[in-house]
């Protein structure tokens, strides 16, 4: 899961303080492993350096931190690129895909298309593996099958999520 882009995505919903950002992150994604404040500020600094966000100036706020951050145009297109670039199917994929979906829903973007794109990518990978099985040794066939079943598990998750997208949208929005 790409924390940098996830924080960028969260910031895309509305300009906010680093403190609020950390709490949003924890609420959505940090159930098992909350983000450290240090990590948040380091990430924000890197994003500013890359021109993906900018500071909105200081004002009095609730927390110790007075800076508010906002996503730039460049930041937005980076987000879109991230969201609609399918990941290589891998064991670590799901959390990233999950993050993408939630962000897409938060941004009111087309989460369904995101899933479709990912599905197409998965399918094309499966086709490759299935084709590779033709005439292969049993060892290789079983290796391909191992990969196929893992991808299939992702695909099932994609299908299930696609089917419950509306429900998910409601919950994400309400959170």
């Amino acid at each position, binding site marked *: 899961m790409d924390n940098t882009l996830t924080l960028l995505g969260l910031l895309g919903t509305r300009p906010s303080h680093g403190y609020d950002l950390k709490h949003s992150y924890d609420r959505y994604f940090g159930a098992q492993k909350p983000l450290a404040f240090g990590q948040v500020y380091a990430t924000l600094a890197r994003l500013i350096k890359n021109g993906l966000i900018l500071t909105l100036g200081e004002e009095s706020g609730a927390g110790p931190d007075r800076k508010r951050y906002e996503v730039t145009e460049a930041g937005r297109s980076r987000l879109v690129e991230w969201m609609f670039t399918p990941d290589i199917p891998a064991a670590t994929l799901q959390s990233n895909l999950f993050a993408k979906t939630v962000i897409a829903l938060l941004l009111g973007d087309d989460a369904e298309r995101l899933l*479709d794109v990912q599905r197409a*990518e998965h399918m094309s990978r*499966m086709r490759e593996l*299935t084709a590779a099985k033709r005439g292969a040794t049993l060892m290789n066939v079983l290796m391909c099958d191992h990969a196929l079943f893992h991808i*299939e598990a992702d695909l099932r998750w994609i299908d299930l999520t696609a089917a419950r997208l509306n429900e998910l949208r409601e919950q994400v929005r309400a959170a």
Partner: protein
Amino acid sequence: MSTAIATTTVPTPHTAVLLSARGLRVTFGHTEALRGVDLDINTGEVIAVMGPSGSGKSTLLHALAGVIVPDAGTVSYGSTPAETVEICALDETARARLRLTDFGFVFQFGQLLPDLSAIDNVSIPLLLGGMRRKDALRQARTWLGRLGLAEQANQRPTELSGGQAQRVAIARALVTGPRVLFADEPTGSLDSLAAENVMVLLTDVARETGTTVLIITHDARTASYADREIIVRDGRVTAGFALSASVAGS
């Protein structure tokens, strides 16, 4: 390994469109099963049709095969302008004849007549086409052999395993030399290995004979035998787009 695979799976370019649907709409009572489907299927393509239950997959297959007439839209069939027919414009008799001669069908289960032996089941489409029984049986035997069922020729469907029964069904679908094979959940009742064997046979034979195949399936692994997949959701075809197109569009 992955790079090697990538090079082998570049789909061969299909030039001639064989089946083409435009603006298909089908309504059952108050339910809209298809709400405007556009689709082109090329000659020799193997296509997987995926989508949630009740999304209109079977209805799409039925409309494309001329089993039902859509409430709106057209289905053209034929690879050259001269031989192209408007399936929706044909009457029931002509559509039945077209299905018999040009299309083959495989279903999830229950398609074989329980009273008939495997070979008789396979010969039925030929007999329906008016072939002499002797010739029909000979041809049916050849096809059973091709699908590895030579020994089961005289067994009844109840004496066959699920995978064998599906292979008999495939033999029956292909025995007339159809140009399009429609398969509705052909592996739906089979275990992984049996499903795999059926799919290997089906796609091998289809590619050898240049048969265009449309497979409805829930199963991603079954679908992975296809050249590409299309996704039906809420009566619309929503996928089938290439990866690059979607990224470029954003």
